[in-house]
C-alpha cells in the first residue's frame, strides 16, 4: 500500500511539473506563464544560489573612462556599466574570493565613443588583455582555471570579436584570452565564430524610465498591422545595397513600400513609442549586426516582434520560449512577409499577446536602476547559476597551461 501511495505522489509531481502555460487572470489582464527549455525560471531568485567576487581594478579601466564620456550610460551598450553597479551592491557579491563561484572583471570596453556616439572597438582588445594581465598577476584565481570561472560583459556589436564589421570580426575571432571564460553579450548567431558555447545572450540596454513615460492607455485600439522605423539602405557605408542587413531590409522596403498594412519609413517620429503600442506586429530585422533594441521595445509595448535574422540567438534563450512569443521569418521569405503574417491564426496572435503581457517577461528585458526582482540582471545571475556547479576539470593541474598569451593579431599585443 505504501508503495502505491508513493507512486501516486510521484505521478502527481510529474503532472504538476508538466503543466505549461496555465492561464491566470491578473487584474483584468489575461496573461500566461512563460517557461522555456530550462523550465519556469524567469522568476527564480539567484540570491543564495551563487556567489560572485568583483575584482577591484584601478579606475582607469572603469570610472575614469565613464567620466570622460557620460554618454556611455544611455547608449545601448550601457549594460556593462550597470551590471558592475548592480553587482557591487547585490547580495550575491562576496568579499571572500575563496568562496566565490564566479569572478567578475569590471572593464568598460565599449565606452570609447566617437563624437557621434558610436563606440570604437580598436582599443578594446588591448584594454581587455591588459585587465586580464592585471588580474592574473595580482590574484591567483585566473591562473587556477585560466578564466573558466570568470565572466565578462561584452555588449558590443559582435561581442568579444571587438569589431563592428562582420568580416573583420570573424577574421579576428573571439579574443584568445577569453576562450575559456563565460561571455555575457548581446550578439547571438548560431554557428558563428563570435558566439562561443556557453555564452549568455542578453538584451541591449534600453532606458526603462524613458519607455515607461511613453505608455498610453491599454484600451487604445491596435490599428497598425505592421510597424517599422529605421534605415533600409545604409547610404553612408553601403551605397548600392546588398551588404547592409544582407539585403533583407532593402527587400522589405522594395516589396512593401506601397502596402497600406505596412507602416514603414525612415523617419524619426516623436511618437515612436506610442505608435508601437498601437501596432500588432513590429519588425525587428537585422542591421549590421543581427540584434537590435527593437526587440526590447516590442516586448515592453506589447507589439509582437517579427524577427528577420537567420540563425539569431535571442536573449535568455533557455529561459524564454521565443518561438512562442515572436514570429520568425527567414531572410529569403521576406518577399512573402504579408502572406506569412496574415496566415497566422488569430488565436495564436492573441496567445502571443498574452505572453507578451506577462509582467515577468517585460521585467526580464529591462535593466532598471535600482535593480528589481526578475529583471535582466537577475536573469544573467540565474543563467550563471544554472551553469553551476563547475566541472572538476576546469581546474588546471599545477604547471598546466592552455592559453597562449601571444596569440591573436599583432596590434592586440601592444600595452594599453
Amino acid at each position, binding site marked *: 500500500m505504501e508503495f502505491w501511495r508513493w507512486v501516486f505522489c510521484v505521478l502527481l509531481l510529474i503532472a504538476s511539473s508538466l503543466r505549461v502555460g496555465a492561464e491566470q487572470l491578473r487584474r*483584468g*489582464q*489575461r496573461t500566461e506563464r512563460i517557461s522555456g527549455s530550462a523550465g519556469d525560471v524567469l522568476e527564480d531568485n539567484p540570491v543564495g544560489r551563487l556567489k560572485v567576487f568583483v575584482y577591484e581594478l584601478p579606475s582607469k579601466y572603469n570610472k575614469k573612462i565613464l567620466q570622460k564620456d557620460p554618454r556611455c550610460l544611455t547608449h545601448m551598450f550601457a549594460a556593462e556599466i550597470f551590471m558592475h553597479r548592480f553587482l557591487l551592491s547585490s547580495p550575491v557579491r562576496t568579499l571572500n574570493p575563496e568562496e566565490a563561484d564566479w569572478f567578475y572583471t569590471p572593464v568598460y570596453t565599449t565606452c570609447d565613443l566617437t563624437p557621434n556616439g558610436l563606440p570604437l572597438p580598436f582599443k578594446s582588445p588591448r584594454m581587455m588583455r591588459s585587465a586580464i*594581465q592585471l588580474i592574473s598577476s595580482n590574484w591567483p584565481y585566473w591562473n587556477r582555471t585560466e578564466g573558466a570561472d570568470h565572466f565578462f560583459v561584452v555588449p558590443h556589436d559582435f561581442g568579444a570579436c571587438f569589431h563592428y564589421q562582420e*568580416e*573583420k570580426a*570573424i*577574421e*579576428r*575571432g573571439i579574443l584568445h584570452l577569453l576562450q575559456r571564460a563565460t561571455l555575457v553579450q548581446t550578439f547571438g*548567431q548560431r*554557428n*558563428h*565564430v563570435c558566439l562561443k558555447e556557453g555564452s549568455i545572450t542578453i538584451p541591449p540596454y534600453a532606458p526603462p524610465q524613458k519607455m515607461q513615460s511613453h505608455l498610453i*492607455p*491599454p*484600451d487604445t*485600439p*491596435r*490599428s497598425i*498591422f505592421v510597424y517599422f522605423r529605421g534605415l533600409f539602405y545604409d547610404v553612408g557605408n553601403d551605397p*548600392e*545595397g*546588398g*551588404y547592409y542587413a*544582407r*539585403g533583407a531590409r*532593402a*527587400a522589405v522596403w*522594395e*516589396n512593401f513600400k*506601397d*502596402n*497600406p*498594412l505596412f507602416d514603414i519609413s525612415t523617419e524619426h517620429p516623436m511618437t515612436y513609442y506610442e505608435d508601437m503600442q498601437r501596432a*500588432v506586429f513590429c519588425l525587428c530585422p537585422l542591421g549590421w549586426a543581427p540584434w537590435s533594441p527593437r526587440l526590447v521595445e516590442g516586448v515592453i509595448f506589447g507589439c509582437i516582434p517579427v524577427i528577420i535574422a*537567420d*540563425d539569431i540567438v535571442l536573449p535568455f534563450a533557455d529561459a524564454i520560449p521565443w518561438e512562442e512569443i515572436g514570429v520568425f521569418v527567414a531572410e*529569403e521569405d*521576406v*518577399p*512573402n512577409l*504579408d*502572406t506569412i*503574417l*496574415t*496566415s*497566422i491564426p*488569430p488565436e495564436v*496572435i*492573441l496567445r502571443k*499577446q498574452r505572453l507578451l503581457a506577462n509582467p515577468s517577461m517585460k521585467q526580464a528585458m529591462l535593466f532598471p536602476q535600482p535593480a528589481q526582482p526578475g529583471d535582466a540582471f537577475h536573469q544573467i545571475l540565474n543563467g550563471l547559476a544554472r551553469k553551476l556547479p563547475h566541472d572538476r576539470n576546469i581546474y588546471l593541474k599545477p604547471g598546466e597551461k592552455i592559453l597562449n*598569451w*601571444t596569440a591573436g*593579431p*599583432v*596590434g592586440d*599585443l*601592444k*600595452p594599453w
Partner: protein
Amino acid sequence: MKLSALQQSYTNRRSNSFRAAGGLDSSVDGSGKSPAAVFWLVLHGLCCLISLVLGFRFSRLVFFLFFSTASNGGTSGLYPSTPFLGTTADIAGSLSFQANSSPNLELPPNRTAGGISSSRVVVGRHGIRIRPWPHPNPDEVMKAHRIIERVQREQKLQFGIKNPRTVIVVTPTYVRTFQTLHLTGLMHSLMNVPYDLIWIVVEAGGTTNETASLLAKSGLRTIHIGFDKRMPNSWEDRHRLEAQMRLRALRIVREEKLDGIVMFGDDSNMHSMELFDEIQKVTWIGAVSVGILAHSGNTDELSSVVHKKAEEENLPPPVQGPACNSSEKLVGWHIFNSLPYVGNGATYIDDRATVLPRKLEWSGFVLNSRLLWKEAEDRPEWVKDLDKLDGVSEEIESPLSLLKDPSMVEPLGSCGRKVLLWWLRVEARTDSKFPARLVF
C-alpha cells in the same frame, strides 16, 4: 618577467610587419604578401580601370540581371565556392569576382581551426529579393483587417466597459435639403457604436416615407414617430419645437420602459466614438463638453470683424459644458459667450449672420432612462416627474429643467476637459432649388 618577454616578441613582430610594407589592413597576419593576394590586387585594379572606361560600376548591372526577376534566390549558390579557385580572366568571371571582392572568410578550408561547423549564413553581398508583383494583395489586406478586428475586440473585452448598457439616441429631424446629409452622418456614427442601440427619431410635420427609407438602411432598431407641427422658420421657434419633440421622445422611453442611457443626438452634430464609451459611465445624469463651431454663412463686414478679433486673441473654439474645481467636483457651467454676437445673430433660417447655439445644448447631457420611468425603485428625489412638465407652460431649455437640484449632474470626459462632440448648424436656404432631399 612574463611581460618583458611579451614585449620582446612584440617588437620583433613589429619590425617584421614593417619590412613587409603591408599595404593590406593590419588585421592580416604580418607574414608577407602571398602571390594570390597580388593576383587579386591586379585583377581588382583591372576591373577598376574597366569601370572607369565604361563609366559605371558594372557589378550593379550583374545584380539587376541576376536578381530582379528571381522570386527566390539561392544567393549563396551563385557565389563561387572559394575565391582561391583560379577563375579565368574573362569578363563574367571577373564580374562575379567583383561581387565577391570581400572574400568569404568562412569558407576557405584553412580556417576550420575553431571547429565551427560552416554556417549557411554567408557574409558579403546579397541580392535584394523582390517578388514579381510587389504590390498589396487584396485578399491578404482583408485577412489582416479581420485579424486587427479580432485583436481590438479582445482589447475591448479586457480593458473596455464591462456590462455595457443600451444607448437610446433621441433625434429630432424634419425633411429638408440637408436632411440626407446630416442624418447619414449621424446614422454612420451610430452604426459604428459597439453597444446595443435604440434610435428614436421624431420628425416634425409627421412621418414621411423618405425619412423612413433612410432609416431602414441603417439596420438599427429605430422608433420613428411624427410630430404634428411643422418646423417654423425662425431659430427661436425651432429651438422651442425641438425641445418639445425631445420631450415627446422621452415620453416614449417612459411608456415603453426602455432601459439604458438616453443621449440627445442632433442630426447636425458630429459625435466621436469615445463619446459613446464615456457615457456608459453615467449613473443618473451626466454632462459632456460640446465644442461649438459657430460660423457665419458669408464674409460680410460685421461678422468678419468678430471673427478677426477671435483669431487675433487666438481663442480656442468655444466649448459648452461642465466646469469643475480642482477636486473634480462640478461647480458651474461653461456656456457659449454670445456677447460678441449680440445683435448679429441669425434670427431666421435664411439669415446670413452667424447661427448661434443656445446657452446649454441638449446634446451635452445624458440621462439614465430610469429617471424617466413612472416607478423606479432607486430614483433619486432630486428629479422631477416627467408628466409634470409639458413644455408649453414653462420653457424647457435644457435637461436641467428636469432636475430639482442641478448640482447632482456628473461631469464626464475627464471633468469636461475632453470635447467629445461638436455642434454645428448648417442648413440650406428655404428657397434652394435642390429637391426636397439630395438624391445621390
